[in-house]
């Protein structure tokens, strides 16, 4: 009897512990957020400032929060559409950056002379902040839409390119020796040795780049008037002194950025085998 009871008790205890752990994982950050909101509310009540407290923000923007899908034409659209349009731009610019960045990165990684010639240029260009590209992009492309795409592209490409090149350069000499002894054809070498070996580095680049391009699109849209997008939405709200709307947008931007990074991390776990993560 006692044995049977013990066996019965043990798993339920384990389950209980797991559940407790789960609850704690959710409750701790929630509690922290509540405390921070409280501090924010108190500060706006004490200090003389134009910034609204969290209660006022919700009061002023509950329509925006509850109806993210409205569409009254022009730039007068719900937050979902604003974010969605910005994300579309990111998707296009980022995809171009990924294709060109990985391609160029492989070339630079394989070719010593190319790498010597281009390395200083890359290092100068990659430190240029996204906003500094905006006037150049506008001057060169004349229109807002392609200029925004270009800004994302030029921001996202550097980490992808540089990480890919590093990944290709670090292919262990042993693997290259194997390729030489077997006299592997170029395509076999590319798909069986080069790409798998560089893949962890390429993913590091891709993950850094997705964060950067999300930062860049908002900066770019703020400067480009009259387009749908979360960046211009913020600028428009500022022009109309709707600080609460800006704060709600910031929350959206943060959540989407977090989502993008988690998405890349998840893709990484899908593609890279255990041993290479």
């Amino acid at each position: 009897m006692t044995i049977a009871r013990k066996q019965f008790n043990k798993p339920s205890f384990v389950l209980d512990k797991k559940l407790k752990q789960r609850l704690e994982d959710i409750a701790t950050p929630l509690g922290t957020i509540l405390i921070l909101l409280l501090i924010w509310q108190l500060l706006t009540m004490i200090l003389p400032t134009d910034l609204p407290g969290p209660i006022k923000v919700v009061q002023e923007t509950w329509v925006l929060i509850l109806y993210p899908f409205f569409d009254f034409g022009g730039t007068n659209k719900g937050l979902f559409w604003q974010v969605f349009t910005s994300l579309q731009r990111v998707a296009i610019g980022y995809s171009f950056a990924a294709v060109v960045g990985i391609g160029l990165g492989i070339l630079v990684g394989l070719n010593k002379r190319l790498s010597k010639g281009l390395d200083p240029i890359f290092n100068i260009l990659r430190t240029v902040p996204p906003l500094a590209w905006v006037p150049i992009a506008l001057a060169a492309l004349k229109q807002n839409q392609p200029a925004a795409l270009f800004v994302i592209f030029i921001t996202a490409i550097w980490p992808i390119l540089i990480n890919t090149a590093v990944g290709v350069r670090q292919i262990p000499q042993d693997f290259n020796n194997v390729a030489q002894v077997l006299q592997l054809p170029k395509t076999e070498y590319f798909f069986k040795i080069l790409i798998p070996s560089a893949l962890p580095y390429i993913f590091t680049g891709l993950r850094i780049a997705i964060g950067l391009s999300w930062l860049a699109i908002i900066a770019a849209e703020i400067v480009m008037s009259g387009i749908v997008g979360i960046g211009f939405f913020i600028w428009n709200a500022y022009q109309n002194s709707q600080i609460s709307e800006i704060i709600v947008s910031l929350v959206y931007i943060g959540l989407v950025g977090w989502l993008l990074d988690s998405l890349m991390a998840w893709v990484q776990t899908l593609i890279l085998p255990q041993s290479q993560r």
Partner: protein
Amino acid sequence: MVTSLKSAQRSSHDATPFLIVDQVSKVYPTKTGDYTVLKDVNLAVNQGEFICVIGHSGCGKSTLLNMVSGFAKPTTGRVLLQGKPIEKPGPDRMVVFQGYALLPWLSVFENVYLGVNVVYPQKSKSEKTQIVKEFLAMVGLADAMEKKPPQISGGMKQRVAIARALALCPEVLILDEPFGALDAITKEELQEELLKIWNTHKCTVLMITHDIDEALFLADRLVMMTNGPAAAIGEVMEIPFRRPRNRSRMMETPEYYKLRNHALDFLYNRFAHDDE
């Protein structure tokens, strides 16, 4: 028992030996001037012979073997395989690398298939698959074909590396300290397997080792190198034990200890390593 190079050449059946290292020197340029690794090395190897190379670290054993595999070229002199100078690495001189060099993202099967696929382009896919399976079975890995290298032990990795090399039926098999990182039991097992395989496939084997007993068990001749810089072959020792060899019976003979002491004397008295 101890023969010079010339008598070894004379005793061979062919007029021209299979592999010839002819007056080979290797000089590496460094900041402080040229560094001579090997100087005037001569060696003639017959087809199907099992040669072990022994010497202190830094004596240029690996450099010598790299010139046979084609990863390095002699500064002066020539290395000839069947009368032709060696230009670059190729699958006719397969190398079992020191660190196994298996591709971790490919399965054991795919690692071996990679080479088979390149070397036998005229064969059908099922034929190539058959070859891979045959050689993996030979090294006792028929059940581990779908595993990835990080999932298997060091001894198994070395077996895969040997299977990968042998599946291409190379003229020369080059092994750079293949069993150095393995435990004593696995090491002895693999030595015996290597001998068995060598017996059936009759390829020429060049193997670097640090282990005199290993060399005495495996080799037809033991090449003992002098210390670097400017190392050369100090002596080539004939190992006359009849094959198939039995390790314990071999070790009971007085001759075994004569050879062993001779090699030890060479390494630790005549060419003792002066630790810099």
